[in-house]
């Protein structure tokens, strides 16, 4: 049986369609989840896609974290369900305190769309096991509030625990502390990534096909689980 990966659509989600396409391309079955859903429909993993949920009014992700479906996701994440937040999804996971830290305004103050190279730091998570630690991949960054921030103790502890998922390796595009591009939860099932792997699954429309590994990884993780 193929894995079923839910992709949440909040009002204002934009990359939900692309995330579903990536899930399908990796060989899993994408399941549309709606922000108002009271159930996760038995999915094996969840992607919170990029976009501007609720317009990103107030702060990115601040309003989305109170959506009904988030209650289900927070609970299931606690039981080990693999969850990946991409860009706005990462912001939502931080706002929901499923991931440490916060994402602040880019150092350059502008929205930045750029092809970036990131280095995978942790290759054991549910979302990165198809990569090798130290591997460089080319993906798309597109965000206005993508600067990863945490207090010194938090930074020290995520470094010590191996919770840094990936770092920018072609210059720091937004002022993220320690070049952090993504982090994972202590348990390793909840991941947040600022750049977009789902926009890097086909060289015709993206900078590479490197991003598919995130979706292929979760397939493997689900099979083992």
């Amino acid at each position, binding site marked *: 049986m193929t894995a079923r990966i839910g992709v949440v659509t909040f*009002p*204002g989600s*934009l*990359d939900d*369609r*692309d995330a579903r*396409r990536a899930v399908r391309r990796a060989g899993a079955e994408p399941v549309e989840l709606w922000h108002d859903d009271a159930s996760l429909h038995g999915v094996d993993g969840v992607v919170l896609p*990029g*976009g*501007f949920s*609720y*317009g*990103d*009014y107030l702060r990115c992700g601040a309003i989305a974290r109170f959506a009904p479906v988030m209650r289900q996701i927070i609970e299931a994440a606690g039981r080990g369900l693999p969850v990946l937040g991409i860009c706005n999804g990462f912001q939502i996971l931080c706002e929901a305190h499923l991931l440490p830290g916060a994402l602040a305004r880019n150092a350059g103050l*502008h*929205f*930045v*769309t*750029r092809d970036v190279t990131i280095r995978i730091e942790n290759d054991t998570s549910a979302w990165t096991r198809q990569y090798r630690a130290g591997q460089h991949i080319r993906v*798309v960054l*597109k965000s*206005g509030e993508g600067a990863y921030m945490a207090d010194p103790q938090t930074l020290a502890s995520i470094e010590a625990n191996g919770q840094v998922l990936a770092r920018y390796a072609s210059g720091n595009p937004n002022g993220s502390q320690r070049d952090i591009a993504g982090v994972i939860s202590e348990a390793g099932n909840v991941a947040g990534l600022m750049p*977009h792997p*789902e*926009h890097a699954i086909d060289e*015709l*429309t*993206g900078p590479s096909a490197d991003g598919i590994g995130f979706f292929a990884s979760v397939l493997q993780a689900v099979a083992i689980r």
Partner: protein
Amino acid sequence: MSQDVAAAPRARAAQDTVADAAATPERAQPFAALGLTADEYARIARLLGRRPTDAELAIYSVMWSEHCSYKSSRKHLRQFADKAPATDVLLAGIGQNAGVVDIGQGYAVTFKIESHNHPSYVEPFQGAATGVGGIVRDILAMGARPVAVMDALRFGPADAPDTRRVLPGVVSGISFYGNCLGLPNIGGELAFDPCYAGNPLVNALCVGVLRHEDLKLAAATGPGNQVILFGSRTGPDGIGGASVLASASFGGTGEGAKRPSVQVGDPFMEKLLVECCLELYRTGLVIGIQDLGAAGVACATTELAAGGGTGMRVRLDSVPLRDASLGPAEILMSESQERMMAIIEPGHVPAFMDICAKWDVQATVIGEVTDTGRLEMSWQGVQVVDIPPGSAADSGPVYDRPAHRPATQDELLAADPGRLPLPAAGRDLRADLLLLLGSPEGGDKTWVTEQYDHYVRGDTVLAMPHDAGLVRIDAETGLGVALATDGNGRYCQLDPYAGTQLALAEAYRNVAVTGARPLAVTNCLNFGSPEDPAVMWQFTEAVRGLADGCQQLGIPVTGGNVSFYNQTGGTPIQPTPVVGVLGVHDDVRCRTVSGFTAAGASVVLLGDTRPEFGGSLWAWLRHGHLGGRPPAVDLDAEKALAGLLAVAAARGLLLAAHDLSDGGLALALAESCLSGGTGCVIQPPADAAVFLFSESAGRAVVAAWPDALPDLVSACAAAGVSAAVIGTTGGPALELTGLFSVPLADLATAHRAALPALFG
């Protein structure tokens, strides 16, 4: 301040009713302050057989404004229809919200470009943002899913303090609205000239996709059908005019002065509105639909009723308000953003409302379609409007304004650039190349384009820095559309007829270099005051040039927009028609890119180069010179070139193709080297300055694999396109043998420097 705590409604006694209007024909009305002439006011009274009510006056004043009625341009724009080439691709044409073009496989696309120049000067961020919002709703109203946007921008000198205020605001406004809406920005323009200092041009384009059967029209049909207003609530946005009316009619409480003329955009609401409309379309319940843009409810109701040949009864007090103190005239004129109006059968209203509720979109029945042929509106029980809708929508005044070629035109043409000293030494040629490449005009636009998301939706095949944007429509077959916009104020200043054809030719060529087949045209005509005969001459020449050019190229104009009164004091901007060309790509996997991505390919210059420097970037930047004739136009040659490029792309002959425009071959080569990360070695002819900097039209530079070269050469011969092998790709530099060599790193530094240095 909020939706729940509304101020007390204005006293109803203050309303000017239809009965009042009949009873008090002599009452003075502030028509002049609303922008109507005495003749126009008299014409309204004649049409109605009485003076208009205040609310009616509001409707006519906005519907008969230059912006909505095209009263100074209409007579000339007819040429687009009269001279339209025979074509079977047009499913809906001029007069609709946007033109619709058949692209095959059951798909159609609709696209249009529109200006938001004045608002963007007053409040750059919101002005530009709402410009994007408005054009997206136009596309949505045709039944299409918007799939991409573009922006053509022109500012005063890049280093002027006011440009530092306006440009970053405009760019972040476009970025904010387009990104938040989830529409990839696939291209545009960025130009600078002192003539735009007090009057920037902000033109936004949107393209949408639909199946043939999904086409929607703005027509209210079926008496008894319900009129539903949905989206944002109506507030006092952009109704400076209506407040004139309010203060004049209601004793001038001064309240009117507070009405803002700036609208604030809510892209989140627009995103919901887009998804909501598309879901509504899928149910098949929508009989007619219209977006609310300039002139708001006044425009939507009159155009829907006129379009359907019906009547309509509207209860203005049903319109959901953000500010309860608004009166009927203000509600009619409000330009609040993110609103649409639909016509629905009564039995389908609940289903309609359910879908709106799902998307959190407020929807309200505000009236119904009638068979009376009258547009009737009530407000708190009294009738405030009773007019034939066509009289406002279609029977506005049409002016044949005087047009005279200004005497100064001859002086301008006489200032021949042939007198300018051409560089000959390698050192000087190199310096001029770096001057162009390092200028805001010729430099890298990444500072702007990086703020735009071009990846969203995952179907963008080409965007900046390529010549045209290219989006995939069907992932199975590879069907896609390419789009480019171009305009050149300098050329048009010298010769508006030829200049407009050059803009058309450039956009056409930009689309063609990707391998796409040009299919249709949209345009945004940015000019000074039509009341100035010299400007009117420029305008008539430009329209004639575009209509003739499209006829010759065999591609119809499907729609567009006219923006007059672009001037500072008495000084108009350079005439700036911006032309958008749409092409179809049968298989986007065969697209041609603009960069040299590999070494060892032959660099071939297609087309003929003549010493043509009139209006050129080189003459302007190197000598501050603007004069003489613009490059010669040869549309048959453009057609031949485009045909050749499509064949070459389909047969996979090309590594790269890049069109030549501003800055000539010099800039094109530098751009291809930089975007592909590979240098080239070029063997220049004797007249290197002409070779490098002339802006002769109808040219492109391509790179072809050595084994494909014979094929390419024979295809060129067959198409009647001259082709000269001028060098080879490869190496770490842009080298002109015997003249100069610039390492790629130095090229890149020069290219990238200008905009970040100015704007941070």
